[in-house]
Protein backbone atom coordinates (compact mmCIF):
# COMPACT_ATOMS: atom_id res chain seq x y z
CA UNK A 1 0.00 0.00 0.00
CA UNK A 2 0.96 3.60 -0.37
CA UNK A 3 1.16 4.17 3.39
CA UNK A 4 4.77 3.17 3.38
CA UNK A 5 5.65 5.81 0.75
CA UNK A 6 8.05 8.69 1.38
CA UNK A 7 6.87 11.31 3.90
CA UNK A 8 5.25 14.21 2.07
CA UNK A 9 3.79 16.27 4.90
CA UNK A 10 4.81 16.07 8.53
CA UNK A 11 3.47 18.48 11.10
CA UNK A 12 4.10 18.60 14.84
CA UNK A 13 2.36 20.76 17.40
CA UNK A 14 0.87 23.21 14.90
CA UNK A 15 -0.94 26.04 16.63
CA UNK A 16 -2.90 28.82 14.95
CA UNK A 17 -4.90 31.47 16.75
CA UNK A 18 -7.15 34.02 15.06
CA UNK A 19 -7.77 37.38 16.68
CA UNK A 20 -6.57 38.63 20.03
CA UNK A 21 -7.72 38.95 23.59
CA UNK A 22 -11.35 38.10 24.25
CA UNK A 23 -12.06 37.49 20.58
CA UNK A 24 -9.18 35.05 20.12
CA UNK A 25 -10.13 31.73 18.54
CA UNK A 26 -7.58 28.98 18.71
CA UNK A 27 -8.38 27.11 15.48
CA UNK A 28 -5.44 24.70 15.66
CA UNK A 29 -4.36 23.42 19.04
CA UNK A 30 -1.26 21.37 18.28
CA UNK A 31 -1.82 19.29 15.18
CA UNK A 32 0.39 16.26 14.60
CA UNK A 33 -0.12 14.86 11.16
CA UNK A 34 1.72 12.76 8.57
CA UNK A 35 0.91 12.18 4.93
CA UNK A 36 2.86 10.17 2.43
CA UNK A 37 3.63 10.22 -1.23
CA UNK A 38 1.33 8.00 -3.22
CA UNK A 39 -1.69 8.30 -0.98
CA UNK A 40 -4.95 10.19 -0.94
CA UNK A 41 -5.65 11.20 2.62
CA UNK A 42 -8.90 12.80 3.66
CA UNK A 43 -9.40 15.14 6.57
CA UNK A 44 -12.86 15.02 8.10
CA UNK A 45 -14.52 16.45 11.16
CA UNK A 46 -17.31 18.70 12.37
CA UNK A 47 -17.71 22.20 11.00
CA UNK A 48 -15.36 24.68 12.61
CA UNK A 49 -12.91 22.06 13.88
CA UNK A 50 -10.08 23.67 11.89
CA UNK A 51 -9.87 21.61 8.70
CA UNK A 52 -9.56 24.52 6.31
CA UNK A 53 -7.18 26.32 8.61
CA UNK A 54 -4.99 23.26 8.79
CA UNK A 55 -5.03 22.86 5.02
CA UNK A 56 -4.05 26.53 4.63
CA UNK A 57 -1.02 26.23 6.86
CA UNK A 58 0.05 22.95 5.26
CA UNK A 59 0.04 24.42 1.76
CA UNK A 60 1.63 27.68 2.90
CA UNK A 61 -1.16 30.11 2.12
CA UNK A 62 -1.33 30.93 5.82
CA UNK A 63 1.33 31.01 8.49
CA UNK A 64 1.01 28.92 11.63
CA UNK A 65 1.91 30.51 14.95
CA UNK A 66 3.83 27.59 16.39
CA UNK A 67 4.98 24.08 15.63
CA UNK A 68 6.73 22.63 12.62
CA UNK A 69 5.37 22.04 9.15
CA UNK A 70 7.59 20.07 6.85
CA UNK A 71 6.47 19.60 3.29
CA UNK A 72 8.88 17.49 1.25
CA UNK A 73 11.54 18.19 3.85
CA UNK A 74 11.11 21.97 3.62
CA UNK A 75 10.18 23.70 6.85
CA UNK A 76 7.51 26.14 5.70
CA UNK A 77 7.73 28.26 8.85
CA UNK A 78 11.36 29.05 8.01
CA UNK A 79 10.63 30.35 4.50
CA UNK A 80 10.34 34.06 3.74
CA UNK A 81 7.06 35.20 2.20
CA UNK A 82 8.61 35.36 -1.25
CA UNK A 83 10.18 31.91 -0.94
CA UNK A 84 6.93 30.51 0.38
CA UNK A 85 5.05 31.92 -2.61
CA UNK A 86 7.57 30.37 -4.99
CA UNK A 87 7.38 27.09 -3.06
CA UNK A 88 3.60 26.99 -3.50
CA UNK A 89 3.92 27.83 -7.16
CA UNK A 90 6.32 24.97 -7.76
CA UNK A 91 4.98 22.26 -5.46
CA UNK A 92 1.32 22.73 -4.65
CA UNK A 93 -1.83 22.27 -6.72
CA UNK A 94 -5.17 23.58 -5.51
CA UNK A 95 -8.76 22.50 -5.95
CA UNK A 96 -11.18 24.78 -4.13
CA UNK A 97 -14.78 24.38 -3.18
CA UNK A 98 -15.57 27.61 -5.09
CA UNK A 99 -13.52 26.55 -8.16
CA UNK A 100 -11.92 30.05 -8.28
CA UNK A 101 -11.59 30.09 -12.03
CA UNK A 102 -11.03 33.53 -13.49
CA UNK A 103 -14.23 34.35 -15.37
CA UNK A 104 -12.72 36.50 -18.13
CA UNK A 105 -10.14 33.89 -19.13
CA UNK A 106 -10.86 30.89 -21.31
CA UNK A 107 -10.58 27.53 -19.59
CA UNK A 108 -7.40 26.89 -21.54
CA UNK A 109 -5.90 30.08 -20.13
CA UNK A 110 -7.17 29.26 -16.66
CA UNK A 111 -5.66 25.80 -16.78
CA UNK A 112 -2.29 27.03 -18.04
CA UNK A 113 -1.78 29.66 -15.32
CA UNK A 114 0.30 27.55 -12.89
CA UNK A 115 2.74 26.76 -15.69
CA UNK A 116 2.90 30.39 -16.81
CA UNK A 117 3.61 31.38 -13.20
CA UNK A 118 6.48 28.92 -13.20
CA UNK A 119 8.00 30.51 -16.30
CA UNK A 120 6.91 28.04 -18.96
CA UNK A 121 6.35 29.43 -22.45
CA UNK A 122 2.79 30.06 -23.53
CA UNK A 123 2.89 27.39 -26.24
CA UNK A 124 4.14 24.68 -23.89
CA UNK A 125 1.81 25.75 -21.10
CA UNK A 126 -1.24 25.67 -23.35
CA UNK A 127 -0.21 22.34 -24.86
CA UNK A 128 0.02 20.79 -21.43
CA UNK A 129 -3.20 22.47 -20.27
CA UNK A 130 -5.01 21.20 -23.35
CA UNK A 131 -3.72 17.69 -22.65
CA UNK A 132 -5.07 17.77 -19.11
CA UNK A 133 -8.36 19.36 -20.13
CA UNK A 134 -8.75 16.57 -22.65
CA UNK A 135 -8.01 14.07 -19.91
CA UNK A 136 -10.81 15.52 -17.76
CA UNK A 137 -13.17 15.37 -20.74
CA UNK A 138 -13.16 18.99 -21.82
CA UNK A 139 -10.89 18.68 -24.83
CA UNK A 140 -13.57 20.06 -27.14
CA UNK A 141 -14.26 23.18 -25.08
CA UNK A 142 -10.80 24.65 -24.66
CA UNK A 143 -11.92 28.14 -25.65
CA UNK A 144 -15.06 28.17 -23.54
CA UNK A 145 -15.33 30.55 -20.61
CA UNK A 146 -16.02 29.25 -17.09
CA UNK A 147 -19.53 30.73 -17.05
CA UNK A 148 -20.43 28.59 -20.07
CA UNK A 149 -19.73 25.41 -18.13
CA UNK A 150 -21.65 23.51 -15.47
CA UNK A 151 -20.38 23.35 -11.91
CA UNK A 152 -19.03 19.85 -12.42
CA UNK A 153 -17.25 20.89 -15.59
CA UNK A 154 -15.78 23.93 -13.85
CA UNK A 155 -14.43 21.74 -11.09
CA UNK A 156 -12.88 19.51 -13.74
CA UNK A 157 -11.15 22.59 -15.19
CA UNK A 158 -9.91 23.36 -11.70
CA UNK A 159 -8.53 19.83 -11.44
CA UNK A 160 -6.75 20.22 -14.77
CA UNK A 161 -5.34 23.51 -13.53
CA UNK A 162 -4.22 21.97 -10.25
CA UNK A 163 -2.28 19.24 -12.01
CA UNK A 164 -0.88 21.05 -15.02
CA UNK A 165 2.47 21.85 -13.38
CA UNK A 166 2.86 18.34 -11.89
CA UNK A 167 2.77 19.44 -8.25
CA UNK A 168 3.96 17.02 -5.58
CA UNK A 169 1.23 18.08 -3.18
CA UNK A 170 -2.40 18.43 -4.19
CA UNK A 171 -4.69 20.28 -1.79
CA UNK A 172 -8.46 19.92 -2.18
CA UNK A 173 -10.87 21.73 0.11
CA UNK A 174 -14.39 20.35 -0.15
CA UNK A 175 -13.97 19.61 -3.87
CA UNK A 176 -17.43 18.07 -4.12
CA UNK A 177 -19.40 20.35 -1.81
CA UNK A 178 -20.74 22.53 -4.62
CA UNK A 179 -21.65 19.56 -6.78
CA UNK A 180 -24.50 17.06 -6.89
CA UNK A 181 -23.87 13.43 -6.06
CA UNK A 182 -23.22 12.24 -9.61
CA UNK A 183 -20.85 15.09 -10.45
CA UNK A 184 -19.15 14.76 -7.09
CA UNK A 185 -18.48 11.16 -7.75
CA UNK A 186 -17.16 11.89 -11.23
CA UNK A 187 -14.78 14.52 -9.87
CA UNK A 188 -13.47 12.10 -7.25
CA UNK A 189 -12.99 9.37 -9.83
CA UNK A 190 -11.08 11.82 -11.92
CA UNK A 191 -8.93 12.88 -8.98
CA UNK A 192 -8.25 9.29 -8.11
CA UNK A 193 -7.32 8.45 -11.70
CA UNK A 194 -5.38 11.55 -12.71
CA UNK A 195 -3.98 12.92 -9.51
CA UNK A 196 -2.88 9.92 -7.49
CA UNK A 197 0.69 9.03 -8.32
CA UNK A 198 3.49 7.39 -6.45
CA UNK A 199 5.36 10.71 -6.17
CA UNK A 200 2.39 12.82 -5.17
CA UNK A 201 0.41 13.29 -1.99
CA UNK A 202 -3.26 14.27 -2.25
CA UNK A 203 -4.99 15.80 0.76
CA UNK A 204 -8.76 16.20 0.58
CA UNK A 205 -10.83 18.00 3.18
CA UNK A 206 -14.44 16.92 3.04
CA UNK A 207 -17.77 16.58 4.78
CA UNK A 208 -19.08 14.33 2.10
CA UNK A 209 -19.37 10.80 3.46
CA UNK A 210 -20.25 9.52 -0.02
CA UNK A 211 -16.69 9.99 -1.15
CA UNK A 212 -14.88 8.50 1.86
CA UNK A 213 -14.35 5.30 -0.09
CA UNK A 214 -11.86 7.07 -2.37
CA UNK A 215 -9.46 7.70 0.50
CA UNK A 216 -6.49 5.58 1.43
CA UNK A 217 -6.59 6.96 4.94
CA UNK A 218 -8.90 9.30 6.80
CA UNK A 219 -7.73 11.73 9.47
CA UNK A 220 -10.42 12.77 11.87
CA UNK A 221 -10.12 16.25 13.33
CA UNK A 222 -11.92 17.54 16.33
CA UNK A 223 -11.65 20.91 18.00
CA UNK A 224 -8.31 21.89 16.50
CA UNK A 225 -6.43 18.59 16.68
CA UNK A 226 -6.17 15.43 14.60
CA UNK A 227 -7.79 12.89 16.87
CA UNK A 228 -7.43 9.60 15.01
CA UNK A 229 -6.26 8.33 11.69
CA UNK A 230 -8.29 5.50 10.20
CA UNK A 231 -7.70 3.19 7.32
CA UNK A 232 -10.46 4.08 4.89
CA UNK A 233 -12.38 0.81 5.38
CA UNK A 234 -12.61 1.24 9.17
CA UNK A 235 -13.97 4.71 8.93
CA UNK A 236 -16.67 3.82 6.46
CA UNK A 237 -17.81 1.06 8.74
CA UNK A 238 -18.08 3.66 11.44
CA UNK A 239 -20.63 5.54 9.31
CA UNK A 240 -22.67 2.87 7.68
Amino acid sequence: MSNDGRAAVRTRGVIKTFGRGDNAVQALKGVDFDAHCGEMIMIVGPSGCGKTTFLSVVCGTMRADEGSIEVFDTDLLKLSTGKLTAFRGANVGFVFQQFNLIPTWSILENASVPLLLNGTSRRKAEEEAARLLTEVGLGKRLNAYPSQLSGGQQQRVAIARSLVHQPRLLICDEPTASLDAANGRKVMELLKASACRADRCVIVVTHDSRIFSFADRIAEMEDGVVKTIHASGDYKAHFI
Partner: protein
Amino acid sequence: MGPLGLFRGLMLRLALKMLYGDVAKFLMLVGGLTFCALLMTQQSGVFCGLMRWTTATIRNVDVPIWVCDAKVEQVNEVVPLRDIEVARVRSVEGVEWAVPLYWGIIQARLRDGSFQQVQITGLDASTLVGHPPRMTAGNVEDLRLPNAVIVDQIAVKKFKSKGYDLKVGDTFEMNDKEARVVGLCIAEPSFMGQPYVYTTYERALEYAPPQRKQLSFVLVKPKPDVPAAEVVSRIRKIPGIAAYTSDEFSKRTMAWYFIYTGIPKSFGFVVLLGAVVGIVISGQTFYLFVHENIRNLAALKAMGASNTLVSEMVLLQAFTAGITGYGLGVGAATLLGMNFLERGEPPFFLPWQVLAFTGSVIVFICLLAACIGLLKVFRAEPAVVFR
Protein backbone atom coordinates in the same frame (compact mmCIF):
# COMPACT_ATOMS: atom_id res chain seq x y z
CA MET B 1 13.86 38.59 -22.62
CA GLY B 2 14.64 35.83 -20.14
CA PRO B 3 12.10 33.32 -18.95
CA LEU B 4 11.15 35.68 -16.13
CA GLY B 5 10.35 38.53 -18.52
CA LEU B 6 8.48 36.11 -20.73
CA PHE B 7 6.19 34.83 -18.03
CA ARG B 8 5.59 38.41 -16.92
CA GLY B 9 4.51 39.25 -20.45
CA LEU B 10 2.14 36.30 -20.56
CA MET B 11 0.56 37.10 -17.22
CA LEU B 12 0.26 40.75 -18.19
CA ARG B 13 -1.59 39.74 -21.34
CA LEU B 14 -4.02 37.88 -19.10
CA ALA B 15 -4.24 40.93 -16.83
CA LEU B 16 -5.49 42.94 -19.80
CA LYS B 17 -8.00 40.24 -20.60
CA MET B 18 -9.21 40.53 -17.05
CA LEU B 19 -9.70 44.26 -17.59
CA TYR B 20 -11.40 44.09 -20.99
CA GLY B 21 -13.45 41.09 -19.94
CA ASP B 22 -15.61 43.20 -17.67
CA VAL B 23 -16.89 45.43 -20.48
CA ALA B 24 -19.29 47.53 -18.42
CA LYS B 25 -16.68 48.41 -15.82
CA PHE B 26 -14.01 48.99 -18.41
CA LEU B 27 -16.25 51.43 -20.29
CA MET B 28 -17.17 53.25 -17.13
CA LEU B 29 -13.54 53.45 -16.09
CA VAL B 30 -12.40 54.74 -19.46
CA GLY B 31 -15.46 56.99 -19.66
CA GLY B 32 -14.60 58.68 -16.37
CA LEU B 33 -11.00 59.19 -17.40
CA THR B 34 -12.01 60.42 -20.85
CA PHE B 35 -14.40 62.93 -19.35
CA CYS B 36 -11.73 64.09 -16.93
CA ALA B 37 -9.07 64.44 -19.64
CA LEU B 38 -11.53 66.14 -21.98
CA LEU B 39 -12.73 68.64 -19.42
CA MET B 40 -9.26 69.49 -18.22
CA THR B 41 -7.68 69.73 -21.68
CA GLN B 42 -10.56 71.66 -23.16
CA GLN B 43 -10.77 74.17 -20.32
CA SER B 44 -7.01 74.58 -20.09
CA GLY B 45 -6.97 74.99 -23.87
CA VAL B 46 -9.54 77.78 -23.71
CA PHE B 47 -7.65 79.34 -20.81
CA CYS B 48 -4.37 79.26 -22.73
CA GLY B 49 -6.22 80.61 -25.75
CA LEU B 50 -7.51 83.52 -23.67
CA MET B 51 -4.04 84.17 -22.30
CA ARG B 52 -2.74 84.13 -25.86
CA TRP B 53 -5.44 86.55 -26.95
CA THR B 54 -4.16 89.02 -24.37
CA THR B 55 -0.85 89.25 -26.22
CA ALA B 56 -2.23 89.19 -29.78
CA THR B 57 -1.22 92.80 -30.42
CA ILE B 58 2.38 91.97 -29.60
CA ARG B 59 2.43 89.21 -32.19
CA ASN B 60 0.47 91.19 -34.77
CA VAL B 61 2.89 94.11 -34.54
CA ASP B 62 5.88 91.78 -34.30
CA VAL B 63 8.86 93.92 -33.37
CA PRO B 64 11.81 92.98 -31.12
CA ILE B 65 11.43 95.73 -28.50
CA TRP B 66 8.50 97.66 -27.03
CA VAL B 67 8.95 100.97 -25.26
CA CYS B 68 6.20 102.52 -23.16
CA ASP B 69 5.47 104.60 -20.10
CA ALA B 70 6.95 103.11 -16.93
CA LYS B 71 3.46 102.76 -15.45
CA VAL B 72 2.22 100.46 -18.24
CA GLU B 73 1.69 96.93 -17.00
CA GLN B 74 0.46 95.19 -20.11
CA VAL B 75 0.03 95.72 -23.82
CA ASN B 76 -3.73 96.38 -23.80
CA GLU B 77 -3.27 99.40 -21.58
CA VAL B 78 -1.95 102.77 -22.68
CA VAL B 79 -0.34 105.54 -20.68
CA PRO B 80 0.57 108.04 -23.40
CA LEU B 81 4.08 109.36 -23.88
CA ARG B 82 5.23 112.62 -25.39
CA ASP B 83 6.11 112.40 -29.08
CA ILE B 84 9.63 113.47 -28.28
CA GLU B 85 10.36 110.08 -26.73
CA VAL B 86 10.67 108.55 -30.19
CA ALA B 87 13.66 110.73 -30.91
CA ARG B 88 15.16 109.99 -27.49
CA VAL B 89 14.88 106.28 -27.96
CA ARG B 90 16.24 106.56 -31.49
CA SER B 91 19.37 108.17 -30.10
CA VAL B 92 20.09 105.30 -27.70
CA GLU B 93 23.19 103.38 -28.67
CA GLY B 94 22.50 100.08 -30.44
CA VAL B 95 19.09 101.11 -31.79
CA GLU B 96 18.72 100.42 -35.51
CA TRP B 97 15.39 102.17 -35.77
CA ALA B 98 12.61 103.42 -33.48
CA VAL B 99 9.12 104.29 -34.73
CA PRO B 100 5.90 105.47 -33.05
CA LEU B 101 2.78 103.33 -32.66
CA TYR B 102 -0.64 104.57 -31.76
CA TRP B 103 -3.03 102.08 -30.24
CA GLY B 104 -6.45 102.83 -28.77
CA ILE B 105 -10.05 101.82 -28.70
CA ILE B 106 -12.46 104.19 -30.40
CA GLN B 107 -15.94 104.20 -31.92
CA ALA B 108 -16.45 103.73 -35.62
CA ARG B 109 -19.75 105.01 -36.99
CA LEU B 110 -21.41 103.13 -39.81
CA ARG B 111 -23.48 104.82 -42.50
CA ASP B 112 -26.74 104.02 -40.72
CA GLY B 113 -25.48 105.70 -37.56
CA SER B 114 -24.79 102.54 -35.57
CA PHE B 115 -21.51 102.24 -33.73
CA GLN B 116 -18.80 99.64 -33.58
CA GLN B 117 -15.81 99.79 -31.25
CA VAL B 118 -12.49 99.21 -33.01
CA GLN B 119 -8.83 98.95 -32.02
CA ILE B 120 -7.23 101.69 -34.02
CA THR B 121 -3.59 100.99 -34.76
CA GLY B 122 -1.58 103.87 -36.14
CA LEU B 123 1.64 102.95 -37.93
CA ASP B 124 4.66 105.06 -38.76
CA ALA B 125 3.78 106.22 -42.28
CA SER B 126 7.26 106.05 -43.77
CA THR B 127 8.17 102.53 -42.62
CA LEU B 128 4.72 100.98 -41.91
CA VAL B 129 6.38 99.01 -39.09
CA GLY B 130 3.76 96.91 -37.32
CA HIS B 131 1.63 96.52 -40.43
CA PRO B 132 -0.96 93.72 -40.63
CA PRO B 133 0.60 90.29 -40.77
CA ARG B 134 -1.43 88.98 -43.71
CA MET B 135 -3.35 90.86 -46.40
CA THR B 136 -6.33 89.25 -48.11
CA ALA B 137 -7.16 92.23 -50.32
CA GLY B 138 -5.37 95.47 -51.25
CA ASN B 139 -1.83 96.62 -50.47
CA VAL B 140 -0.24 97.69 -47.22
CA GLU B 141 1.38 100.64 -49.08
CA ASP B 142 -2.07 102.01 -49.88
CA LEU B 143 -2.29 103.04 -46.21
CA ARG B 144 -0.39 106.15 -47.31
CA LEU B 145 -3.37 107.22 -49.47
CA PRO B 146 -5.72 109.85 -48.00
CA ASN B 147 -8.17 108.56 -45.36
CA ALA B 148 -6.96 105.02 -45.95
CA VAL B 149 -7.53 102.22 -43.44
CA ILE B 150 -7.03 98.47 -43.54
CA VAL B 151 -9.45 96.36 -41.52
CA ASP B 152 -9.16 92.79 -40.28
CA GLN B 153 -11.41 89.76 -40.67
CA ILE B 154 -13.20 90.52 -37.43
CA ALA B 155 -14.23 93.94 -38.71
CA VAL B 156 -15.66 92.27 -41.79
CA LYS B 157 -17.56 89.84 -39.59
CA LYS B 158 -18.87 92.46 -37.16
CA PHE B 159 -19.91 94.84 -39.92
CA LYS B 160 -21.62 91.97 -41.71
CA SER B 161 -23.67 91.24 -38.59
CA LYS B 162 -24.85 94.87 -38.84
CA GLY B 163 -25.81 94.47 -42.47
CA TYR B 164 -22.66 95.82 -44.17
CA ASP B 165 -20.63 93.68 -46.48
CA LEU B 166 -17.35 95.52 -46.00
CA LYS B 167 -15.21 95.61 -49.15
CA VAL B 168 -12.23 97.56 -50.41
CA GLY B 169 -13.51 101.03 -51.32
CA ASP B 170 -16.20 101.17 -48.64
CA THR B 171 -16.20 103.97 -46.08
CA PHE B 172 -17.19 104.54 -42.49
CA GLU B 173 -16.50 107.31 -39.99
CA MET B 174 -14.39 107.67 -36.92
CA ASN B 175 -14.58 110.91 -34.90
CA ASP B 176 -16.61 112.46 -37.75
CA LYS B 177 -13.78 111.83 -40.19
CA GLU B 178 -14.08 109.55 -43.14
CA ALA B 179 -12.14 106.28 -43.28
CA ARG B 180 -11.85 104.49 -46.60
CA VAL B 181 -11.06 100.81 -46.67
CA VAL B 182 -8.06 100.17 -48.95
CA GLY B 183 -7.33 96.63 -47.83
CA LEU B 184 -8.50 93.66 -45.82
CA CYS B 185 -6.19 91.65 -43.60
CA ILE B 186 -6.11 88.78 -41.20
CA ALA B 187 -4.84 89.57 -37.74
CA GLU B 188 -4.64 87.37 -34.70
CA PRO B 189 -7.80 88.10 -32.68
CA SER B 190 -7.20 89.84 -29.39
CA PHE B 191 -8.57 89.59 -25.90
CA MET B 192 -10.33 92.93 -26.36
CA GLY B 193 -12.50 91.36 -29.04
CA GLN B 194 -12.73 94.50 -31.16
CA PRO B 195 -11.56 94.45 -34.77
CA TYR B 196 -8.21 95.93 -35.71
CA VAL B 197 -8.33 98.99 -37.92
CA TYR B 198 -4.90 99.95 -39.26
CA THR B 199 -3.99 103.42 -40.40
CA THR B 200 -1.00 105.75 -40.21
CA TYR B 201 0.17 107.27 -36.96
CA GLU B 202 -0.75 110.83 -37.92
CA ARG B 203 -4.19 109.88 -39.13
CA ALA B 204 -4.82 107.75 -36.03
CA LEU B 205 -4.32 110.92 -33.99
CA GLU B 206 -7.06 112.57 -36.04
CA TYR B 207 -9.44 109.70 -35.50
CA ALA B 208 -8.66 109.49 -31.78
CA PRO B 209 -10.00 111.91 -29.18
CA PRO B 210 -7.47 114.73 -28.65
CA GLN B 211 -5.12 114.32 -25.68
CA ARG B 212 -2.17 116.22 -24.32
CA LYS B 213 0.14 113.26 -24.86
CA GLN B 214 -0.62 110.87 -27.73
CA LEU B 215 2.18 108.39 -28.32
CA SER B 216 1.21 104.87 -27.15
CA PHE B 217 4.38 102.90 -27.83
CA VAL B 218 7.75 103.24 -29.45
CA LEU B 219 8.72 100.20 -31.48
CA VAL B 220 12.41 99.43 -31.65
CA LYS B 221 14.75 97.17 -33.55
CA PRO B 222 18.28 96.75 -32.20
CA LYS B 223 21.29 96.83 -34.49
CA PRO B 224 22.07 93.37 -35.89
CA ASP B 225 25.05 92.67 -33.64
CA VAL B 226 23.54 94.07 -30.43
CA PRO B 227 21.47 91.78 -28.19
CA ALA B 228 17.94 93.04 -27.59
CA ALA B 229 18.35 92.70 -23.82
CA GLU B 230 21.28 95.10 -23.87
CA VAL B 231 19.39 97.72 -25.86
CA VAL B 232 16.42 97.29 -23.53
CA SER B 233 18.51 98.00 -20.47
CA ARG B 234 19.98 101.11 -22.13
CA ILE B 235 16.52 102.43 -23.08
CA ARG B 236 15.32 101.88 -19.52
CA LYS B 237 17.79 104.51 -18.36
CA ILE B 238 15.55 107.19 -19.90
CA PRO B 239 13.50 108.49 -16.94
CA GLY B 240 9.82 107.55 -16.83
CA ILE B 241 10.22 105.02 -19.63
CA ALA B 242 10.06 101.24 -19.66
CA ALA B 243 11.29 98.90 -22.37
CA TYR B 244 10.73 95.21 -22.88
CA THR B 245 11.66 92.61 -25.42
CA SER B 246 8.49 91.33 -27.05
CA ASP B 247 8.93 88.12 -25.10
CA GLU B 248 9.16 89.95 -21.77
CA PHE B 249 6.20 92.11 -22.68
CA SER B 250 4.11 89.01 -23.48
CA LYS B 251 5.00 87.41 -20.18
CA ARG B 252 4.32 90.61 -18.30
CA THR B 253 0.96 90.99 -20.01
CA MET B 254 -0.09 87.41 -19.26
CA ALA B 255 1.12 87.72 -15.68
CA TRP B 256 -1.02 90.82 -15.29
CA TYR B 257 -4.15 89.03 -16.51
CA PHE B 258 -3.26 86.07 -14.39
CA ILE B 259 -2.98 88.15 -11.23
CA TYR B 260 -5.54 90.91 -11.69
CA THR B 261 -8.45 89.09 -13.35
CA GLY B 262 -10.68 86.24 -12.20
CA ILE B 263 -9.89 84.24 -15.34
CA PRO B 264 -7.39 81.79 -13.84
CA LYS B 265 -9.68 81.21 -10.88
CA SER B 266 -12.78 80.39 -12.86
CA PHE B 267 -10.92 78.14 -15.29
CA GLY B 268 -8.86 76.65 -12.51
CA PHE B 269 -12.10 75.75 -10.78
CA VAL B 270 -13.45 73.84 -13.78
CA VAL B 271 -10.11 72.10 -14.29
CA LEU B 272 -10.12 71.11 -10.65
CA LEU B 273 -13.68 69.89 -11.06
CA GLY B 274 -12.53 67.73 -13.98
CA ALA B 275 -9.77 66.25 -11.88
CA VAL B 276 -12.14 65.58 -8.99
CA VAL B 277 -14.75 63.99 -11.24
CA GLY B 278 -12.01 61.84 -12.76
CA ILE B 279 -10.75 60.78 -9.36
CA VAL B 280 -14.20 60.04 -8.04
CA ILE B 281 -15.63 58.17 -11.04
CA SER B 282 -12.51 56.39 -12.19
CA GLY B 283 -10.96 55.90 -8.81
CA GLN B 284 -14.14 54.39 -7.51
CA THR B 285 -14.78 52.22 -10.53
CA PHE B 286 -11.25 50.90 -10.50
CA TYR B 287 -11.47 50.24 -6.80
CA LEU B 288 -14.67 48.27 -7.41
CA PHE B 289 -12.97 46.41 -10.22
CA VAL B 290 -10.07 45.39 -7.97
CA HIS B 291 -12.44 44.66 -5.14
CA GLU B 292 -14.43 42.23 -7.27
CA ASN B 293 -11.23 40.68 -8.51
CA ILE B 294 -9.72 40.21 -5.06
CA ARG B 295 -10.69 36.58 -5.00
CA ASN B 296 -9.17 35.99 -8.43
CA LEU B 297 -5.99 37.82 -7.52
CA ALA B 298 -5.80 35.94 -4.23
CA ALA B 299 -6.18 32.67 -6.15
CA LEU B 300 -3.26 33.71 -8.33
CA LYS B 301 -1.28 34.52 -5.20
CA ALA B 302 -2.12 31.10 -3.77
CA MET B 303 -0.93 29.49 -7.00
CA GLY B 304 2.41 31.23 -6.72
CA ALA B 305 2.02 34.75 -8.13
CA SER B 306 4.24 37.13 -6.17
CA ASN B 307 3.01 40.47 -4.85
CA THR B 308 5.25 42.13 -7.43
CA LEU B 309 3.58 40.33 -10.30
CA VAL B 310 0.10 41.03 -8.96
CA SER B 311 1.02 44.72 -8.54
CA GLU B 312 2.27 44.84 -12.09
CA MET B 313 -0.98 43.35 -13.28
CA VAL B 314 -3.07 45.87 -11.35
CA LEU B 315 -0.88 48.80 -12.41
CA LEU B 316 -1.05 47.70 -16.02
CA GLN B 317 -4.82 47.53 -15.77
CA ALA B 318 -5.00 51.01 -14.25
CA PHE B 319 -2.65 52.55 -16.78
CA THR B 320 -4.28 50.88 -19.75
CA ALA B 321 -7.56 52.45 -18.74
CA GLY B 322 -5.71 55.71 -18.05
CA ILE B 323 -3.93 55.89 -21.40
CA THR B 324 -7.10 54.98 -23.27
CA GLY B 325 -9.09 57.64 -21.44
CA TYR B 326 -6.33 60.19 -21.89
CA GLY B 327 -6.11 59.52 -25.62
CA LEU B 328 -9.85 59.74 -26.13
CA GLY B 329 -10.21 62.82 -23.92
CA VAL B 330 -7.34 64.75 -25.48
CA GLY B 331 -8.50 63.68 -28.93
CA ALA B 332 -12.02 64.94 -28.28
CA ALA B 333 -10.69 68.19 -26.80
CA THR B 334 -8.53 68.73 -29.87
CA LEU B 335 -11.46 68.15 -32.21
CA LEU B 336 -13.56 70.59 -30.20
CA GLY B 337 -10.70 73.08 -30.19
CA MET B 338 -10.30 72.84 -33.96
CA ASN B 339 -13.98 73.60 -34.25
CA PHE B 340 -13.56 76.63 -31.96
CA LEU B 341 -10.66 77.90 -34.02
CA GLU B 342 -12.69 77.58 -37.17
CA ARG B 343 -15.50 79.61 -35.66
CA GLY B 344 -13.04 82.10 -34.17
CA GLU B 345 -14.25 81.67 -30.59
CA PRO B 346 -13.92 80.71 -27.85
CA PRO B 347 -10.15 80.95 -28.05
CA PHE B 348 -8.19 77.73 -27.97
CA PHE B 349 -4.52 77.02 -27.66
CA LEU B 350 -2.91 73.73 -26.66
CA PRO B 351 0.73 74.07 -25.66
CA TRP B 352 2.46 70.81 -24.75
CA GLN B 353 2.40 71.86 -21.12
CA VAL B 354 -1.39 71.42 -21.05
CA LEU B 355 -1.07 67.91 -22.45
CA ALA B 356 1.64 67.14 -19.93
CA PHE B 357 -0.46 68.60 -17.13
CA THR B 358 -3.56 66.60 -18.05
CA GLY B 359 -1.38 63.54 -18.51
CA SER B 360 0.09 63.89 -15.05
CA VAL B 361 -3.33 64.27 -13.46
CA ILE B 362 -4.43 61.09 -15.22
CA VAL B 363 -1.26 59.31 -14.08
CA PHE B 364 -1.97 60.52 -10.57
CA ILE B 365 -5.54 59.19 -10.70
CA CYS B 366 -4.34 55.82 -12.02
CA LEU B 367 -1.63 55.56 -9.39
CA LEU B 368 -4.04 56.51 -6.65
CA ALA B 369 -6.67 54.03 -7.82
CA ALA B 370 -4.10 51.28 -8.31
CA CYS B 371 -2.49 51.89 -4.92
CA ILE B 372 -5.78 51.77 -3.06
CA GLY B 373 -6.63 48.58 -4.92
CA LEU B 374 -3.18 47.15 -4.25
CA LEU B 375 -3.49 47.80 -0.53
CA LYS B 376 -6.44 45.45 -0.63
CA VAL B 377 -4.56 42.92 -2.72
CA PHE B 378 -1.55 42.92 -0.41
CA ARG B 379 -3.75 42.54 2.62
CA ALA B 380 -5.69 39.68 1.07
CA GLU B 381 -4.21 36.49 2.46
CA PRO B 382 -4.08 33.91 -0.28
CA ALA B 383 -5.95 31.66 2.14
CA VAL B 384 -9.16 33.62 1.46
CA VAL B 385 -9.58 31.41 -1.59
CA PHE B 386 -10.57 28.57 0.68
CA ARG B 387 -13.53 30.51 1.96
